[in-house]
Every structure is written in structure tokens, then in C-alpha cells.
């Protein structure tokens, strides 16, 4: 005989057993003996948190009411698992590589670590899951009530609400103990997962035991069941058991979406995943589990409908059938199966939700109150985080309890489950878009989530409270303010749809549309784009995520990588030295944290800290490059760019220097060419008189000219050419001295008139010879000079003799005019010849620029070049004056007694 105390006692023992399982598993996990934990079977069984009390009890009820439709709830996850390669693999890879802790974290991380999205998804998850938790509490309470009702005679009727509180409290305790024992970076809970795997087995065994009992114990085998099914179909209300295509597709899609987006499913699928390869096994093993779970649903339902009294709650057939036939042991097992279903769901869901609530709501709030606090103050952050988790767990279970109290626990189990499903399914567009579409943006995700959530609340969640609830009967029937298009269950005039399908259709359609269009219209931030690339291309970037196993293979991988970076010899030597330090032979040291740290530092010197960290992380953890790592890499890249720009600046400097050098070189080359031209010119100027001298001297030597007159003439030519040669040499030396600035000047006081007199006297022979008349205005010439008047006279002599020689007028005249202009003295020499042609005017002051057709006049062509040098030294100038009647030269000088050489020259040194 089952007494209430027995029931509670068995429950208690069962829970103790779960505690022990969790405890042992946790302990082994901490000793890194994770071999059995990484078994794909444990992973597959842990996925059974999908099968909650709703599945355990509710599926039978569902089948009793709507026939085969309950299969859709299993069909969705089956499709997802079979198609794991396409979606789940990517989801798990991203979860692993990004160290994602929850579905909220995944969405937030994908969209540039947006905390707004984290909060949003957390809120949706909490709101969507609370009814579900209430559902579990309700089912456990109901199952207690079943025993109580049947055995009321010997039992103290337990207070149902009291029971719910005890159950909730016990679950909170278990969850806190095993869900928040330690803060694992990966948020894995080996103990909990193992306990849930055990519960999964209990669920399956219990349901199958009841099923076998029903079919072969009381139903008369498969034939009896077939008959019972026919009977049930006929007895069912018109159309209730017929297949509705739209609802089937809708519900299958909904359960598939929920399978991916339910926080507890994300927790076991992605966060608790130890090795990606587990997915391959689960892809067939989990559908098999679901198949076995659903195998006896219809038989139990039809037999229950046929045998049990009318009005019996079909949701509890699993329990009431054994009890009806007084199979206490079987009933006990069924009770434990339902208990397992409920508890495993609540535990995992509350862990997942607590992680989300504490990470995305409580911790940001706490951190914002600590702004500006010294970093050392964060030591208690760990404790705060653990407390936040525990608080969240209690809060979530309390929320579930209060929902249960408020909703009254009346609604059919399946209906509540579907509402939850539709709520969390709103995360699907943002999640799937984030994994497969790089263009998905934060703004799009936020807008889509809000839109979908609001539509879901309006069309499904709020109406679910019934006509006495949030929405009035008239609002449900006629829409708000009588607007028919806004009727919650017939939005935009779409009438006649099933409420769940209707809500799902509108919420997801609008969610997706808003998500896509806002994404297209908004521009993602750099971090978002970086994350988008990380998520969408996760399969290209990394190998399968594997468990962190510190073994020789990892060490070898590290060596391979180090060889790539350090070079083979150096890497091998370094690894050997490290192994030796650990007392090991060979090249493969143990991958201790100490060794990893040193390797990282070693590599940092070569590839930069961030890159080294990322590379080692990739090999060690199976975790790929995180965003922070990438950002650090970007920083290093930035530094490199800066160095590059510095190098560029240096290069620019060098280029400038090179250009300057090349300019100087060009100048030198030019000078060299000028020098060559000058030498060639001098050669010519020297050889020409030399030619005459040699030719005539040979004639004289050979006695060729017997005529004494001719001989005399030849001798005089030799003489003239020798003089010309000497003058050329004198001019060259003079010019050389002047040009090199080595000339010594002898300034003295003299009047201009006297200087001109001397110059004319020196040129009198050529003036006479050329019969040139000189015109002067002597009264203007009484200007006092203080300069090297010998040099000045040399300039004047040159100009006068040039005029005499080159003036081509018949009646040669030269006018010399002296005047003062602008503080300077001008002396103009203007003849009446045809002057210097325009094209030659700029050249006449250059060396050897003698105008060729006047070469006969003698002179080496250095005269004006010498004049220019002299006037330069005297602080004056000499220029050609164009536009005069003939050739015209202007000499300018500083006026007065002031020394052009500054005051350092005493005025009485004219004796020097």
C-alpha cells in the first residue's frame, strides 16, 4: 500500500540519488576524468530536457484530445537533429569559439556585444519560460493530488499549494548546489548534466513500462489497441482527430524553432557541449529517444479513454491507469518519470535563465554602481556573480510558482507549452540571421525582437489568460476600440486560423520583415561587422571544437606551430629545454599553465602578444580567436601601421636627400661640362695664335722667304701673336683670381674725372688707330670715389677699347656720361655703331663669348667677363643697355667716400 509518506520518502530518496550522481560527476569532472562525460550518449540523454512533464503527461492528453497531432512536438526536434550538419553544427561551433554562455549572450555577442539585446532576449526568455516552469510545478502537484485523491481514506490530504512550494524550494536548492557550485568560464555543469541523463533514462523506462503494461497487460496486445484506436476515432468529437495540414506544418516548425531557442535547450545543446563530435551521434540517437518516448502515447490515450471513467483528466492517464489497476510499483515508477521530467526541465531552465539574468541584468547594474572604483575592488566580483546567480534561481522559481498560483493551474498542459514555444521562437530570426547573414545588424535584431515579442504577447500570451484576464471579451471579439483589423486572434482580418498558428504566423512574419528591412537600412558598427564575420564564417575559420585535453598531441601541435614561427631548430631546442625542466625526455613537455605562459611570452616577442595568445588559445582550448583577441591584433596592426608611416616619413626624408644629392650631382656634372667646355675653349684660344707662330717660324727657319720684307712681316706676326698669347694668359689668370675671390683690392680716394682720364690715356693708341671721338661732360665727372680705382680704370679701358675695336660706324663716336641716380653713380658708355644683337646681349658677359665675326679685332673674349667680376667685387655692376643708338654699357658704383667694404677699413690705408 502506498502511503503519502512512502511517496514522499521515495521522492526524497530519488532526489538524494540525484544529488549523489551530480556530486560524483562533478568531482570526477574536476579531476579532469571527463571521459565518460564527453560520451555522446550522456550528451544525447541530456537533450531529453526537451521532454518535460508536458511530454510525459501532456502528450497522452494531447493525443486523447487531438489524435496524432502531438507528433508534431517530436517532429520539429527530429528534423533539427537530422539536419544538424546544416544548423546545429554552426551554432555549437560559434558557441564554443565565442565562449557563449547563453542564448542571450549569443545574440548579444553576435550584434557587437550589445547589452540591450542581451537584456531583451533575457526578458523574452524569462517571460516565455515562466509559464513553462509553472507548468512543471503544476504537473508535479497534480500528480501528488492524484495519489491523494485515490487514497484519501488513509492519507492526510496534502495542501496542493504547500506541495508546489516544497517542490519549488527543493528544486531551487538542487539547482543552486549544482548549478552555481563553481564559476566555470564555459558555464558547464557536469554534475547537473549527468543527473539529467539519469533522469532521462528514468523517464523513458517509466513511460515504456506504463506503455507495455497498457498494451499487453490490459489492452490485449496490438490487435486490442488497434480496435481501441478505431473506437476512439469514432467516439471523438467531429474533426478533433483529423489531420489539419496548416496546424501540422505550423506546430512542427514551432517545435523545431523552440528546440533551438528555448534557453534550457540552448544550455544543453551548445553550452554544455563538451565535444562537437557528440552532435553526430545525437543526430540519430536523440530522434530515436523521441520515437521511443512517443511510441506508447496513442495506446495509453485510447486505452485510458476506453477504460477510465468519463471526465478523468487525460493529462494524467500515465499515472491514473496503473493506479486504476492498483499497480502501485508501476504507478510509483510513472510518478518518478513525471517527477524527473519536471525537475530536469526546471533545473536546466533555471540555470540557463539565472546565467542570463545575472550576466545581462544584475552584473551590468552592479558594475554601473562601481564606476570609477579601483580595479582591486573587483576581487569580490566573483562572489557577487555567484550570489547573483543564486538570487536569480530563487527569483525565477518564485516567478514560476506565482504564475502557477495566479493562473490557477487550470489550463491544459499542452496549451501552456505551445504559448511558451511561440514566445521564445521570436529569438530565432535574430539567431539564424546572425549565423548565416553578415548583413544582419543590431538595430535590425532589436527591432525584429521587439516587434515579434509584442505581436506574440498581443495575439497569444495575453489572450491566454482568458476572457476574465487582461483582455476583455469584447476586445477579443471586436478588437480594441472596435477596430476589427486589430482583433488579437484575427489580426488584419486573417480569420479562422488556429490561435497558435495565427500568432506564430504574424509574429514571425513581422519579426522577420522588420529584422531584415531594418538591417538593410542600418549600418553596423565595426565591432558588429567583426563579430558578424566571426559568426557567419565560423566553419571556415576553425576546426571542430574539441575538449580541452592536455596531452602529448596538444603539445605536438604547439611544437608544430612554434616551429612555424620560431624556426625548426630554435623551437625544438626550446621545447627540449622546457621538457628537461619538467624532468622529461624528448621534445614534448607537459602543457602545464606555466609552460603555456612561457611559450606565449616566447612567441609574443615574435608575433605580438595578442596573436600569440590567440594562436595558443586556438590550439589549446579548441576555442577560436575571440573578438577581444582580434581587437588586440587590430591594435598591434595599428602599431605596425604607425611604424610603417614612420618608416615612410624616413623614406621621404631619404628621398629628399637623394633628390638634393642628385641635384648637387647634376650641378657638379654641369660644372664639369662647363669646365670641359672652358678648357676646350682655352685650348682653342691658345692654339690659334700658336698656329700662326709655328707656321711662320717654320717658314723663317727653312729660309723660305728670301724677300727680307716678307721675313720682317712674318716676324712681326709672330711677335703680335706672342703678345696676344701673353695677354690671353694674363686675362685668364686675372679672371681666375677674381672668380676665386682671392683678389686683393686697394681702395683709395680719387675723383671720377681722373679715373676716366687715365683709362682714355691707356687706350689712346687704339682710339687713334680707329679714329674714334670721345664725348665727355667733364663738369659731371667731379665725383669723389673711394674704391679700387685701378680696377675701375681696367673696366673703363676694356669698354673704351671694345668700342674702338667693334664700333662699325664710319665716323666712330663714344659718349661717356656720368650721373648720380638713387644713391648710386652711373657711368654710361654709348657708341654710335650697330650695337649688340638682341640674341647675344645676354651672353656677352660670359667667358669667350666674343662675337665671332669680330674675332679679327683680337682679344680672347674674356674682357667683359673680367669687367663683370671686377664690378661685382667693387660692389657695383656692369650691364648692357639696350635701346640706345649703338652699343651701350652702364657701370654703376656706390657713391661717396663711404667704403664699400665697411667701416673696418681705415680711410688712410690708400698707401697699401
Amino acid at each position, binding site marked *: 500500500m502506498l502511503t503519502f509518506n512512502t511517496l514522499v520518502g521515495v521522492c526524497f530518496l530519488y532526489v538524494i540519488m540525484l544529488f549523489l550522481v551530480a556530486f560524483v560527476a562533478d568531482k570526477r569532472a574536476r579531476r579532469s576524468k571527463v571521459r565518460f562525460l564527453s560520451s555522446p550518449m550522456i550528451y544525447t540523454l541530456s537533450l531529453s530536457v526537451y521532454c518535460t512533464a508536458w511530454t510525459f503527461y501532456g502528450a497522452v492528453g494531447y493525443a486523447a484530445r487531438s489524435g496524432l497531432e502531438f507528433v508534431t512536438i517530436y517532429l520539429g526536434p527530429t528534423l533539427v537533429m537530422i539536419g544538424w550538419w546544416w544548423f546545429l553544427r554552426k551554432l555549437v561551433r560559434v558557441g564554443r569559439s565565442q565562449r557563449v554562455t547563453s542564448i542571450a549572450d549569443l545574440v548579444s555577442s553576435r550584434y557587437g556585444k550589445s547589452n540591450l539585446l542581451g537584456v531583451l532576449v533575457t526578458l523574452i526568455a524569462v517571460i516565455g519560460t515562466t509559464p513553462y516552469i509553472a507548468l512543471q510545478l503544476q504537473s508535479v502537484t497534480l500528480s501528488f493530488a492524484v495519489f491523494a485523491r485515490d487514497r484519501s481514506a488513509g492519507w492526510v490530504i496534502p495542501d496542493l499549494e504547500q506541495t508546489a512550494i516544497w517542490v519549488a524550494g527543493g528544486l531551487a536548492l538542487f539547482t543552486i548546489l549544482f548549478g552555481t557550485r563553481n564559476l566555470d568560464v564555459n558555464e558547464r555543469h557536469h554534475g547537473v548534466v549527468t543527473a539529467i541523463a539519469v533522469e532521462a533514462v528514468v523517464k523513458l523506462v517509466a513511460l515504456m513500462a506504463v506503455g507495455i503494461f497498457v498494451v499487453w497487460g490490459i489492452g490485449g496486445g496490438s490487435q486490442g489497441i488497434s480496435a481501441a484506436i478505431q473506437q476512439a476515432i469514432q467516439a471523438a468529437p467531429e474533426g478533433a482527430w483529423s489531420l489539419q495540414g496548416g496546424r501540422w506544418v505550423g506546430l512542427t516548425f514551432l517545435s523545431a524553432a523552440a528546440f533551438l531557442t528555448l534557453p534550457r535547450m540552448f544550455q544543453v545543446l551548445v553550452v554544455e557541449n563538451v565535444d562537437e563530435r557528440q552532435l553526430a551521434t545525437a543526430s540519430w540517437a536523440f530522434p530515436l529517444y523521441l520515437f521511443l518516448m512517443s511510441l506508447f502515447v496513442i495506446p495509453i490515450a485510447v486505452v485510458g479513454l476506453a477504460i477510465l471513467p468519463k471526465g478523468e483528466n487525460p493529462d494524467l492517464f500515465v499515472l491514473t491507469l496503473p493506479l486504476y489497476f492498483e499497480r502501485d510499483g508501476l504507478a510509483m515508477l510513472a510518478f518518478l518519470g513525471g517527477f524527473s521530467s519536471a525537475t530536469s526541465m526546471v533545473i536546466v531552465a533555471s540555470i540557463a535563465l539565472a546565467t542570463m539574468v545575472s550576466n545581462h541584468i544584475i552584473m551590468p547594474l552592479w558594475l554601473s554602481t562601481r564606476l570609477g572604483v579601483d580595479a582591486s575592488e573587483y576581487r569580490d566580483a566573483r562572489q557577487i556573480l555567484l550570489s547573483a546567480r543564486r538570487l536569480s534561481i530563487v527569483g525565477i522559481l518564485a516567478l514560476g510558482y506565482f504564475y502557477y498560483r495566479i493562473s490557477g493551474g487550470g489550463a491544459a498542459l499542452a496549451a501552456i507549452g505551445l504559448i511558451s514555444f511561440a514566445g521564445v521562437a521570436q529569438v530565432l530570426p535574430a539567431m539564424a540571421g546572425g549565423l548565416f547573414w553578415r548583413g544582419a545588424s543590431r538595430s535590425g535584431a532589436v527591432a525584429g525582437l521587439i516587434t515579434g515579442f509584442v505581436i506574440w504577447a498581443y495575439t497569444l500570451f495575453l489572450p491566454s489568460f482568458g476572457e476574465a484576464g487582461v483582455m476583455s471579451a469584447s476586445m477579443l471579439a471586436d478588437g480594441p476600440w472596435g477596430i476589427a483589423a486589430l482583433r488579437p486572434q484575427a489580426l488584419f482580418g486573417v480569420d479562422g486560423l488556429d490561435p497558435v498558428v495565427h500568432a506564430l504566423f504574424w509574429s514571425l512574419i513581422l519579426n522577420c520583415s522588420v529584422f531584415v528591412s531594418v538591417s538593410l537600412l542600418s549600418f553596423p558598427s565595426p565591432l558588429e561587422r567583426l563579430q558578424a564575420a566571426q559568426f557567419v564564417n565560423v566553419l571556415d575559420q576553425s576546426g571542430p571544437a574539441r575538449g580541452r585535453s592536455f596531452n602529448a598531441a596538444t603539445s605536438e601541435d604547439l611544437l608544430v606551430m612554434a616551429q612555424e614561427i620560431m624556426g625548426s631548430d630554435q623551437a625544438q631546442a626550446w621545447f627540449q629545454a622546457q621538457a628537461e625542466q619538467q624532468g622529461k625526455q624528448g621534445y614534448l613537455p607537459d602543457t602545464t599553465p606555466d609552460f603555456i605562459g612561457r611559450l606565449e611570452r616566447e612567441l609574443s616577442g615574435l608575433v605580438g602578444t595578442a596573436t600569440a595568445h590567440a594562436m595558443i588559445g586556438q590550439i589549446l582550448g579548441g576555442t577560436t580567436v575571440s573578438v577581444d583577441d582580434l581587437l588586440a591584433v587590430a591594435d598591434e596592426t595599428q602599431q605596425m601601421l604607425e611604424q610603417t608611416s614612420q618608416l615612410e616619413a624616413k623614406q621621404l626624408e631619404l628621398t629628399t636627400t637623394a633628390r638634393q644629392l642628385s641635384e648637387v650631382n647634376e650641378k657638379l656634372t654641369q660644372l664639369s661640362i662647363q669646365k670641359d667646355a672652358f678648357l676646350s675653349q682655352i685650348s682653342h684660344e691658345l692654339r*690659334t695664335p700658336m698656329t*700662326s707662330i*709655328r707656321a711662320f717660324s717654320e717658314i723663317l727657319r727653312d729660309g723660305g722667304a728670301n724677300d727680307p720684307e716678307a721675313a720682317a712681316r712674318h716676324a712681326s*706676326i709672330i711677335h703680335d701673336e706672342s703678345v696676344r698669347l701673353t695677354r690671353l694668359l694674363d686675362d685668364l689668370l686675372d679672371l681666375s683670381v677674381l672668380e676665386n675671390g682671392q683678389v686683393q683690392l686697394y681702395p683709395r680716394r680719387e675723383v671720377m674725372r681722373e679715373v676716366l682720364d687715365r683709362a682714355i690715356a691707356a687706350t689712346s693708341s687704339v682710339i687713334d688707330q680707329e679714329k674714334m671721338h670721345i664725348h665727355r661732360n667733364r663738369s659731371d665727372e667731379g665725383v669723389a670715389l673711394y674704391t679700387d680705382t685701378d680696377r675701375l680704370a681696367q673696366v673703363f679701358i676694356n669698354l673704351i677699347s671694345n668700342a674702338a675695336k667693334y664700333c662699325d660706324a664710319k665716323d666712330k663716336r663714344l659718349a661717356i656720361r656720368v650721373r648720380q641716380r638713387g644713391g648710386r653713380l652711373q657711368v654710361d658708355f654709348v657708341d654710335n655703331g650697330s650695337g649688340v644683337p638682341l640674341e647675344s646681349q645676354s651672353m656677352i658677359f660670359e667667358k669667350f663669348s666674343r662675337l*665671332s665675326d669680330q674675332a679679327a679685332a683680337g682679344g680672347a673674349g674674356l674682357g667683359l667677363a673680367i669687367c663683370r667680376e671686377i664690378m661685382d667685387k667693387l660692389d657695383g655692376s656692369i650691364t648692357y643697355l639696350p635701346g640706345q643708338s649703338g652699343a651701350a654699357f652702364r657701370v654703376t658704383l656706390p657713391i661717396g667716400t663711404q667704403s664699400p667694404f665697411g667701416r673696418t677699413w681705415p680711410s688712410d690705408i690708400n698707401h697699401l
Partner: protein
Amino acid sequence: MKRQVLVIEDEPNIAEAISFILSRDGWSVSTHASGTTAVQAVRDAKPDVLILDVMLPGKSGYDILQDLRSADDTRALPVLMLTARGQKTDRDLAERLGVNRFMTKPFSNSEILTNLRELVGG
């Protein structure tokens, strides 16, 4: 009949020296001092051989040589070039243009005679 030689040389003393040496050797010598009108002077004088200076007023000896070599009546005229710029590049240029003899100043009198005799085949 005396061999005709035309001397184109702007330095009067050099022209006089060459005239004296060649006349004494039995040549009929005429001189011309301008580069500009040199080619016409060659046409007018129709010499058996031409002595050509390089540095001439108006037109260089190279240009004159080029003109002579491109005209039918003067293409074959033997030319002896004289220059005070004795660099190799000058000689190369002259030879490319088709000079027969190239001498640098100052020259020896016998050398210029030998060259001229060779040029007119006597």
C-alpha cells in the same frame, strides 16, 4: 696647270701662313674668311682641294662639310680639315661627315703639304 686650293679660315694670320706655304709649293691659293658664304665660295672657286677650318663665324666647318657632301658637284671634293680643338670627338665627327684628312693646329708645314699632295694624287 696649277692645282687649285681654297682655304677657308677666319684667322687672317693663319690664312696668310697657309697661303704662303702652299704658293711656294706651286699651288694656286685662294682664301675665304666667312663660314656663312663658304659653300658658295667653293662652288665659285671649284678648287681641286679644300682646306677647311672648324671654328668659323656664321657657320661651322662641320656644317659646311655636310653641305658639300650632300651636293653632287662637291661630293667628291677632297677636304682637309684644320681645327684648334683637337679632341677625339671632333675627329670622329669629321670622319663621319666624310672628311679626307684631319689635322690639329698648330701643324707642321711639311705635314700639310704632304697631306694635300696625297689628296690630289700627286
